[in-house]
């Protein structure tokens, strides 16, 4: 599905299925939400810094969920925060991806025995990539974002959206796993 870049007499052009071309564009503009709940957010900020420069992959942070493609669960999630994170996730436009960053977002981590901590972000969000570590190094988070890129690359996104459009469902965009919060 990967498009091939050809050289023509009047400059280069790309040949490939439209899905592949779309995915090529999508995977290189993976914007993540600038949002963190605990110390992993420091590593999240560091990942956006010059050392592991995610900007070279087109990954930049956005301050609003409406412009973001990726939600990084960076840090411990308390029950009260979980409903707010769900609200942020619901505001993101499809297609959207979730990364569980660090032990706390994976399983509750160090604070698993607390009465107030959610035992894993996958209890209330569809998580695509889990990153171990406490906290993960910026390289790990960068790798997680690149795994999302690989996932996007293989996704027949247009086919999926068109299939939904052709079926009887009124909404052309896939909405599974994003029921509105009460």
């Amino acid at each position: 599905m990967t498009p091939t870049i050809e050289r023509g007499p009047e400059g280069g052009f790309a040949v490939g299925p439209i899905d592949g071309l779309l995915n090529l564009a999508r995977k290189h503009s993976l914007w993540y939400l600038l949002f963190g709940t605990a110390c992993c957010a420091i590593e999240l900020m560091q990942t956006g810094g010059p050392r592991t420069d995610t900007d070279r992959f087109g990954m930049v942070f956005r301050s609003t969920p409406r412009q973001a493609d990726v939600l990084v669960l960076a840090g411990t999630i308390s029950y009260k925060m979980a409903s707010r994170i769900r609200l942020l996730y619901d505001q993101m436009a499809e297609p959207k991806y979730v990364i569980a960053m660090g032990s706390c977002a994976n399983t509750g981590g160090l604070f698993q025995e607390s009465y107030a901590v959610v035992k894993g972000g996958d209890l209330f969000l569809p998580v695509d990539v889990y990153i171990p570590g406490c906290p993960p190094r910026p390289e790990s988070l960068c790798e997680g974002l690149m795994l999302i890129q690989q996932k996007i690359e293989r996704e027949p996104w247009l086919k999926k959206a068109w299939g939904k459009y052709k079926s009887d469902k009124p909404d052309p965009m896939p909405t599974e796993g994003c029921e509105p919060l009460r």
Partner: protein
Amino acid sequence: MNRQETSVVERLKSALGGKIQDVYEDGRGVVVRVELSAVPDTLEALRSDASTPFNLLADVTAVDWSRWSEETGMKPPPARFSLYYNLYSISATTRLFIEAWLEDGQAAPSATPFYASADWAERTVFDMFGIRFSGHPDLRRIYMPDDFEYSPLRKEFPRRGVDPQDFPQE
């Protein structure tokens, strides 16, 4: 007890009389134990004290003593919960604790008429221990979600917390 604390306790004793049950000193500082019903009078007397006005309510906390005697083998406490008011006088740099005991289900008088900072502190105690405060303007949970049904710092609450399925999904 230093001279300032002694004089404050003396004035408090003359103002409240027999409502003061005990005055003792431990690692925290000077603790004045009063009846639960005398807490508003005590707070008012300390707040409007002439030489050492206690103008800061730093904290309101509680302790659950329900497993005290079975775990330590020591003599049972006077009631299930003890309530502590952490008072500080900024001008006189003096700290004083008010202690009051109450049973489960008994409502404590709110300190919000005297100290605005008691609002969130009492909400915290209500959230963690389930102790109600009569006269509180807005007694809701503060840390836990509103639909959470337990009081996490009570001794009968399981240490690992409740089942995560209790969290409302989708």
